[in-house]
């Protein structure tokens, strides 16, 4: 046995380092931050309730959820796309397209045929994007930006730029998706809930969901593990298109008429909701549940500020602050430090 020298370090108890430590989150801090989005949500609800007692009125709550449903349904699909490591900026434009098409076909083919035809057309658009991003590996930001513009052009060509209205608004059952209620719950909320739970389970529990996370987390490693990356990305865009078509259906059914720009600008709201929910734009992280919370937060901010009587632009500023705080707390909890360690 060779000689083992004693510890080389100075044996005297060394002065503990006194230098400033980075701010560490305590146990409670970490818990709060990890549930940052829920805490923010709760604070909001409390704040608005104090500011305006009508805020918690069941009718109001129901109303907010109902009008968030359209945005929400779209956000569900975009969550898949974002987790798989891509973006979809075309959902707003595509939703306008879906709405206009289903309204137009309603009068031409009748609702029973109009709805599947519209779904088919929107899924084709989704498949086209999925093909470009998944199989041809084109950059999703630019592809969907291009599609935002192109689909808008397509919608205008389709409608001739005119508003689309159902001729016989009283005599159609088409309004069930947007205006009726089952057991007192508005159908848009039911559809949203149904899709959210279906897609939520799909993402969290099925092999496909696992692959979405893998492809978004590290596409190369996913390929090396035998995952057909292109197919996964393609499917995510199909899911997104399906959600968009559903949103268009609710929208069309809700107002039985629409203009060409009904979905304009929604893409960024949708993205904001998905990010608020904690999905990472790098891909690989996020959940449907959190996206739903993100959607509700946006909806309640809008509604709450309106009730309080603040101008609509105050909502912009508040959304800004909320987004940054929520995401910040979320990552602070993950790294266990409030401030970023980057120099």
């Amino acid at each position, binding site marked *: 046995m060779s000689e083992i020298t004693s510890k080389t370090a100075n044996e005297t108890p060394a002065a503990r380092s006194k230098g400033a430590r980075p701010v560490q989150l305590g146990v409670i801090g970490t818990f709060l931050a990890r549930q940052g989005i829920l805490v923010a949500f709760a604070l909001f609800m409390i704040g608005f309730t104090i500011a305006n007692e009508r805020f918690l009125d069941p009718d109001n709550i129901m109303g907010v959820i109902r009008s968030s449903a359209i945005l929400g349904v779209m956000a569900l699909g975009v969550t898949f796309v974002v987790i798989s490591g891509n973006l979809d900026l075309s959902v707003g434009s595509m939703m306008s397209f879906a709405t206009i098409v289903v309204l137009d076909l309603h009068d031409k083919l009748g609702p029973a045929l109009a709805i599947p035809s519209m779904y088919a057309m929107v899924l084709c658009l989704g498949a086209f994007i999925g093909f470009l991003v998944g199989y041809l590996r*084109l950059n999703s930001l630019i592809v969907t*930006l*291009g*599609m935002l513009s192109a689909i808008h*052009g397509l919608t205008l060509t389709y409608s001739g*730029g005119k508003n689309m209205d159902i001729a016989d608004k009283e005599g159609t059952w088409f309004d069930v998706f947007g205006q009726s209620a089952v057991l007192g719950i508005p159908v848009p909320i039911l559809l949203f809930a149904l899709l959210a739970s279906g897609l939520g389970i799909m993402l969290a529990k099925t092999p496909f969901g696992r692959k979405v996370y893998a492809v978004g987390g590290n596409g190369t490693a996913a390929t090396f593990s035998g995952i057909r990356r292109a197919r996964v990305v393609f499917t995510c865009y199909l899911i997104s298109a399906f959600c968009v078509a559903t949103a268009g259906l609710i929208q069309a059914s809700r107002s039985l008429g629409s203009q060409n720009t009904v979905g304009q600008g929604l893409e960024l709201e949708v993205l904001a909701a998905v990010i608020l929910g904690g999905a990472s734009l790098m891909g690989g992280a996020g959940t449907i549940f959190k996206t739903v919370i993100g959607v509700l937060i946006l909806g309640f901010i809008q509604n709450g500020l309106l009730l309080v009587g603040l101008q609509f632009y105050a909502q912009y*500023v508040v959304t*800004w602050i909320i987004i*940054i705080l929520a995401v910040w707390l979320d990552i602070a909890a993950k790294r266990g430090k409030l401030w970023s360690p980057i*120099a």
Partner: protein
Amino acid sequence: MEPGTLSTYLKRGAIWGFIVLELIFFSIAGEFLSLSDKPFMDLDNMLLLFKQSAPIGIIAIGMTLIMINGNIDLSVGAIFAMSAVIFLDSMTWPIFAGLGDAVIPVAWVLALLTGVGLGAINGLIVWKTGVDAFIVTLGAMLGYRGLVFMYNGEQPTSHLNWTLVDFAEAQFLGIHTATWFLLGVTLVLWFIMTRTVHGRNAYAIGDNREAAVNAGIRVGPHFLINFMIIGFLAALSAVVFYAESGSVNPNDGELYELWAITAVVLGGTKLAGGSGSIISTFGGVLAIQLLRKGLGHIGADTETVNLVIGLILIAVLFLDRQLNLKGREALRI
């Protein structure tokens, strides 16, 4: 490789080839379809092209720097509007009442400071919180826009100063004022990116942020500076543009971020960061403006313009991919 050699430009040449194609197409199509007796490639028309490229061009040049850095800035449209509001409004502030036209440079400085300040806020948040720039600036896109609206309700902010207009409309050596600014900004940024330590660090950080941190580059302050630069450029763009128009709607500059990003990507800069060139972005800006101008020239209607611009964007991306495709033996991942 010393950055900026001829071979790199040739490799990134797709955008210039595309510009040539556009010129040829619109010249020929213009013969048949245009109302104008003048050819598309008329000198004046081309000079106008440069001038009209300036508002988005100046921003896109800054966006290149941000994107090489591996970040993105979605708030430039809102910064553009906010700087414009300050620029036009400050000329009417009572404290400057005695200045006469000397108020102009003061307003310029204030507007540019606004841009730098808003950029700095983004930069600080990115630096201190570690939240991804996409998210920070997506939030700021809304937040700053809210500030613009708050400033003047929903009314446009206006101040038409004819001295300014004359300055903006002037042509020095036949080249418009706005073009001079665009060229100047392009040159300066090109120089920064290829010749200075800051510029080279920008590439390094975008390429491999962890490596840059490990090597002791102070990534946080670096980001801060770059966000201040793009804030400055967004403000400069506003200052140059609103000198000539004198009135800003609170929603002006919306979607500018997307057009700027489009120009940058058309120029071949990768969204992932680490590579890209200022000169190619300049090409990307010209290509987009040329497309708009050309489609107007041949009388395409709104839906066609939307459709064509969207599809061209995708087509260019596709071509670029095909051109840069590695050989058949490449790894299939």
